[in-house]
């Protein structure tokens, strides 16, 4: 099945309605498994139990960046291939990405208090995460201000592509300042620096978060398609009413 077959919203809705319960169940199962692994995982010798915040914090950070990737792909779909569902996908991804970024910021702040002694520091990663959050809010602001869905989604698509340049700068800024936040410890030369007893639950949670993202994303896309149908029907209804009165 080609991706163009999904261009028909009704067919897409059928597939989504069939896939969504399975995805939701899989998400819950992975999360339950991950949480049990976390309960069995050891505390950090220095940080104690607070290290368990990591299992929320790190996957949320990864997902917040992946979500912008999904939005950029959707933006290409909107601008280049003019795929009818691409702008629906982009619009559905934006609030989810903003929420993941927000979760990452909040958990990071709560984690920073016991370990660094402060809720907030102006360190490279925190700051670039905050900028990412602001960029998400900018995209959302575009959607909020524009009534016509097509016009708004094209504008947001351009902003998403421009913002995609920001993500390499996030990585770059880590190298440039590198103050309080520890450097990347999972993906680096010479293999991971994390003990397997912590790495396994982390990867399980990351999988759970990814599944959660796709579940929410598909559900949000379905809602957006239905919302647009309601809007179109209301416009027709209003037009008929106006004609009847004339």
């Amino acid at each position, binding site marked *: 099945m080609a991706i163009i077959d999904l261009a028909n919203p009704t067919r897409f809705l059928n597939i989504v309605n069939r896939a969504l319960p399975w995805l939701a169940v899989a998400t819950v199962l992975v999360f339950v498994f991950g949480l049990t692994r976390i309960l069995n995982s050891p505390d950090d010798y220095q940080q104690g139990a607070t290290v368990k915040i990591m299992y929320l914090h790190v996957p949320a950070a990864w997902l917040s960046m992946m979500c912008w990737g999904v939005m950029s792909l959707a933006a290409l779909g909107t601008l280049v291939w003019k795929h009818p569902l691409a702008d629906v996908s982009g619009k559905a991804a934006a609030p989810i990405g903003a929420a993941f970024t927000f979760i990452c910021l909040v958990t990071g702040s709560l984690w920073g208090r016991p370990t660094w002694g402060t809720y907030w520091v102006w360190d490279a990663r925190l700051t670039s995460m905050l900028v990412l959050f602001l960029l998400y809010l900018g995209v959302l602001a575009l959607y909020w201000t*524009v009534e016509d869905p097509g016009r708004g989604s094209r504008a947001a698509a351009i*902003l998403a592509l421009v913002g995609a340049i920001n993500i390499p700068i996030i990585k770059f800024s880590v190298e440039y300042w590198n103050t309080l936040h520890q450097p990347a410890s999972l993906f680096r030369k010479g293999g991971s620096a994390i003990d397997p007893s912590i790495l396994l639950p982390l990867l399980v949670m990351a999988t759970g978060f990814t599944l959660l993202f796709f579940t929410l994303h598909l559900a949000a896309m379905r809602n957006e398609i239905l919302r647009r149908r309601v809007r179109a029907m209301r416009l027709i209804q209003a037009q008929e009413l106006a004609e009847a009165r004339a």
Partner: protein
Amino acid sequence: MSAFISLLVRDMRIAVRVGGGALMGALFFLIVVTMMPFAIGPDLGLLARIGPAILWLGALLASLLALDRLFANDHDDGSLDLLMMGRMPLELTVAAKAIAHWLTTGLPLVLIAPVLGLMLNVEMHAMVWVALTLLAGTPALTFIGLIGAALAVTLRRGGLLLAVLVLPLTVPVLIFGVAAANAAIVGPAPFGPPFTILCALSLASLVLGPVAAAAALRAGQE
């Protein structure tokens, strides 16, 4: 090329005439810098230390405020549609408008920055460096802002939306601009790396800005 230059000259001529508001940005810059000591206090030592940062922030806000003017007037009187129908590629048209905009609002900011620096007790030799970083960095602000201006004009929204869209994208420019200025004045880090990165940001936005802005204008027209 002649179309490019004539558009450039036209935009500059409009900007310096009555209602063009070319000097409004510089005036706003002056006012922002004047307000800072009222908020921070008249401690000259402190002002000298954060002077470059104040100048950069003021220049950022001033160039942001002037962005509205980039397309709004041309859009209102219909000449933007004519420009878009012209034979010159839209990317070049947009670039000409942005260069004219920088020459009439960005360059005055660079020129008055040394004078404002005196008021902030920034030393004379340091002011040259701050002005140099502004000269290298303000084109990036204009060309990044160009994207936001194009998006805002097609959506017929300006003002706050423009600021919300553009400001997060200008973070790297501000960081490296202030870093380069501070490196030149107090050290100990070398001036070269942040300054060349600042130049790179300007050059990259010079390429990316017009392409994205042209795409935004085209998308808004459909």
